Structures are given as structure tokens and as C-alpha cells.
């Protein structure tokens, strides 16, 4: 199961003087789900477009399969959903799917059978015969996923599949992706860490065209786990002064000051907790909340993206 499906090496794209993707390398395992994470403008879309063979890379290598599969011969084994999928609005959903399937080399009969299957899978059977011009945004997104799956690809690449959807549509798409796990290899881009954590095993974090961090989610969670203390206090002069003074304690590694509270990354939870509770009691600080926990990937994400 750990067979490599896709490996890219030093992939670079420059457009004029700007360089949206600056030499990234990673691998995808067959059957896995990988999230390509990053803020807007990190180069996620450009990377996916290169992988889908829509734009040629300036430098670097894309290799499908374990051998030397080239993009062209792999086109029929990739499903691709762009960020804003646009369809022929004069076609019906069903017609569009079977047109796409035929383009990817399915016979007419096979195309029709698969189209029916996937249209049911994404829950569009009611609207199958209606023109796409009358579809809502969520329906179009689901049709987009259906067209990415219709030719039974080995790898599907989805560019921001849930960003434009309302909470219910988002839920449906996430459930759909979750069901697909294991059957197909999924690579999807998102700027929401929560989506990635929900269904993926691996993630690649891109910032400014470079890979800032990558690996299995569970490993990353362990790697970035750090004791964190959150303190909220009543608004007051004494309290604020006390919060400001926290930065120079020896056990405080980092501090994030808010209006009425602070978040402390500490080196040793035991020491920090004991010392701080003592101080709170001695100083008569009006405490609202005191919470000991560990940092999440979200904190790591914010830190890497912010810096």
C-alpha cells in the first residue's frame, strides 16, 4: 500500500518576474489523502494546475506511477477539479458527465453507466436532466466532483473543493471525500486547516511558493505539541500590568497577549502552573479562566503562515 503514485521534484514555475512555486518536492502514496495547505497566494493552485498538465512547469519533474509515467499518458487516470469549475451551461448535468467520460476514453455505453453512478454518488440525480445554467453553486461544485470521478481515475486533485460552499454543502462534500478514501488517492488544496485535519492522513503546508512543513498529520501533531497555558482575567489596571509582566518569567517561552488574557507557551507545565497560581493568589488578581493544555496544529499553522 505504500507504493508511490506521484512524485515531484524541484517543481518550479515562474511567470515573468514572479515565482509562484519555488522548487517544491513531495511524494504521494497510493490510496492516501493529502491536503495541500496554505494561505491564499501560496502557490497551491499553480501547483495543481501543473500537476493536471494545464500549464508547463518552468523547471522540475513530475513523475506519475513508480516508473517514468509522463503527464500526457496519465491524463486519463487523473481527475481534476479547478477552484471555480465552469461548465457548458447549455448542457444538462448528465450530458456533461458523459461528454467528459468519453473525452477520457470511455466508450459511449460505459460513459453513460459511469455518469449515472457518479451523479447518484454526489446526489444530483434529481437534477440530472436539467440544464447546468439552472444549477446552484453547491450543485455545480458537486457536479465538478462528479466529473473528476467519472472516468475512475487513480488520483483526484481538487482545488479548494469546499471553500465556496455553505456549511451544509461543505459537510456533504467532506463526507463524500471521506467515503472515497482508500478507493482513490486524493490530493486537495485548502486554506482551512480544520478541513485537512478532518479527512487527511498527510499534509503539505505551502507558504510563498515553498513547502514550509510536510508529513503525516499524527506526526506533526506530536512534533508541535507544546504545553500551553491560557489565562483570562477581569479588566483592570492591576490585572493588565500583571499580564504584561508575564513575559519575563523564566519558564515562559512565548507569549501572546490579548486584551483581557494571555496565551503562554511554557517549557515546563508543572513549574509554570504552580508558580502562576501562587502569583494569582498573592497578587489578588481577579481571574476569569485558567486553562492548561497543549498547542494544536492550528497554532503551528498560524505561526508558520504569520512569520
Amino acid at each position: 500500500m505504500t507504493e508511490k503514485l506521484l512524485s515531484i521534484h524541484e517543481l518550479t514555475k515562474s511567470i515573468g518576474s514572479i515565482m509562484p512555486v519555488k522548487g517544491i518536492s513531495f511524494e504521494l502514496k497510493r490510496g492516501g489523502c493529502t491536503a495541500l495547505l496554505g494561505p491564499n497566494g501560496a502557490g497551491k493552485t499553480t501547483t495543481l494546475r501543473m500537476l493536471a498538465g494545464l500549464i508547463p512547469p518552468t523547471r522540475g519533474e513530475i513523475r506519475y506511477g513508480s516508473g517514468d509515467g509522463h503527464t500526457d499518458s496519465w491524463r486519463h487516470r487523473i481527475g481534476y477539479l479547478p477552484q471555480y469549475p465552469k461548465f457548458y451551461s447549455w448542457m444538462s448535468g448528465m450530458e456533461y458527465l458523459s461528454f467528459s467520460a468519453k473525452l477520457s476514453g470511455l466508450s459511449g455505453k460505459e460513459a453513460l453507466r459511469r455518469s449515472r453512478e457518479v451523479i447518484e454518488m454526489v446526489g444530483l440525480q434529481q437534477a440530472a436532466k436539467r440544464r447546468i445554467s439552472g444549477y446552484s453553486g453547491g450543485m455545480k461544485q458537486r457536479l465538478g466532483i462528479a466529473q473528476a470521478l467519472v472516468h475512475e481515475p487513480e488520483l483526484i486533485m481538487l482545488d479548494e473543493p469546499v471553500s465556496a460552499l455553505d456549511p451544509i454543502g461543505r459537510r456533504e462534500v467532506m463526507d463524500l471525500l471521506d467515503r472515497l478514501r482508500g478507493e482513490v488517492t486524493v490530493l486537495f488544496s485548502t486554506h482551512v486547516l480544520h478541513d485537512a485535519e478532518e479527512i487527511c492522513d498527510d499534509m503539505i503546508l505551502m507558504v510563498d511558493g515553498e513547502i514550509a512543513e510536510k508529513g503525516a498529520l499524527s506526526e506533526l501533531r506530536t512534533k508541535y505539541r507544546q504545553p500551553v497555558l491560557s489565562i483570562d482575567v477581569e479588566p483592570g489596571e492591576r490585572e493588565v500590568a500583571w499580564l504584561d509582566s508575564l513575559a519575563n518569567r523564566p519558564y515562559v517561552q512565548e507569549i501572546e497577549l490579548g486584551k483581557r488574557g494571555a496565551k503562554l507557551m511554557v517549557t515546563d507545565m508543572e513549574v509554570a502552573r504552580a508558580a502562576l497560581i501562587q502569583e494569582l493568589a498573592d497578587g489578588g488578581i481577579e481571574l476569569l479562566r485558567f486553562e492548561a493544555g497543549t498547542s494544536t496544529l492550528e497554532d503551528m499553522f498560524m505561526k508558520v503562515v504569520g512569520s
Partner: protein
Amino acid sequence: MKPFWIYYQKEMLESGRTYKWIWVPAVFLLLGIMQPVSTYYLPEILTMAGEVPPEAAALFTVPSAESVMASALSQFSVIGLLVLVLAGMNTVAGERATGTAELVLARSVSTIPMMAAKWAAMMTLVAASFALGLGGAAYYTHLLIGPLEWGAVASGGGLYVVWLAWIVTLALPLGAVLRGPAAAFISLAVAGALSLLSGLLPSRLQWNPGRLSSMAAERIVGEGSSVWSPIIVAILLMVLSIIVAARLLRRSPLSPQS
């Protein structure tokens, strides 16, 4: 060959659903019929208008059937050509501007069958509409004005289709780099310039494809010489257009603004 048919069916379905198969043939039919009918009734129309003395109207002689057909062709080369170019301008430019090309190109190994199918679908529309228009014009001319030599009309019509075809084809490569209206304007401007050139310097530039429209008219009147070079140049131009358009589309599948 198979991708070509898939695209061709799609293009034909598109021009049907967007009513191109209704309004383009309708315009051509109307243009074709109007010429012989208005020529035939011109004396009556003039008398009814009342400002022309009946003697002057009587002096008006109905032109020969052949020259009526030739002037019908000149109708097609103004409004007919405009209609065709407007109908065809968005076949490539529209796909880039709306972004539908992105999904389709992710599936296509080569863009040549796609372009060839777009071209073939456009040609089907051009040929069918023109045949209808020319047929209408010939029928009414025959009925109202006089007998025609069908062979000459057919071969003149054939020449004329080639002239329409190469101009409409220009919209493919232009549409792969420009927006639809700009592509349409440039194709028309090129057609106008080449026609003008053939009118100004008839002895030079024998190969000029802009000559085809006047050659077609001469053929119908019955005095045309048979020169193959403009036809060959027009065909080469079309093949070149398809290849260039396919290359350009692969290089920039999306409009910058999308």
C-alpha cells in the same frame, strides 16, 4: 479520430442549443431571396412611391438572371459574413473567457482534434447556411427573372464557400489570444483589406484569397478564368490557423482575467 467526433458532436449540439442553427441560416435565406424579389418588383415599388413618372419606371430594365445572382453574392459578403464571424467569434475565445476550457483541456492529450472539430462544426454551419441562401436566391431568380445555368451557379457557390470559410477560420487562432469581439473585428478587417487589395491590383497577387469572392461572381456571370492558387492559399491558411490555434490554446488555456 474518436476525440474529434466527441468534440464535433458537442460543438453541433452547442450551436443547436444556442439557436445558431436557426438564425444564421435564416439570415442567409432572407438575404438570398431578397435580391431577386426586390429586383423584380423594383419598377412597381418605384411607381408606388409616386415620385417617379411611369415613363421613367418603364425605362428600368430587369437585369439578367446571372447578374442578379452575382449581386446576391455581394449581399452575402457584407451582412452574411458579419453574421458568420459574429456567430463564430466565441468558439475559442468564449471557452477561454468563461473557463470551460480548463476542465476540457485537463482531459485532452492533444488540442488538435478539438480545434479541428470546432473548425468542422463552423464549416458545417457556413456551408449549410450559404447553400440555403444561394439555393433560395437561385430558385427565385429562376422563377421571376429567367433561366440560370445551374453548373455555373454551383461552381461559383463552391468558390464563394471557400472565401467565407477562410475568413471565419481566422477567428480560431485570433480567439486563442484575444477576446471574441477583437478576434471578429480583426478577421473582418483582414478580409476587407485583402479584398480591397485584389480590387486595386488585380493583375498582381494572383494567389490572394481575397479574390475568391469576385472570382465567384465572375464564374456565375460566366466569364471567370480558372485559377487555383487562391483556393490553395485559402486552404493552407485554414490548416495553418487550426494548428496555430491548437498550439496557442495549449500554451494559454485561460484568459488572464479569469
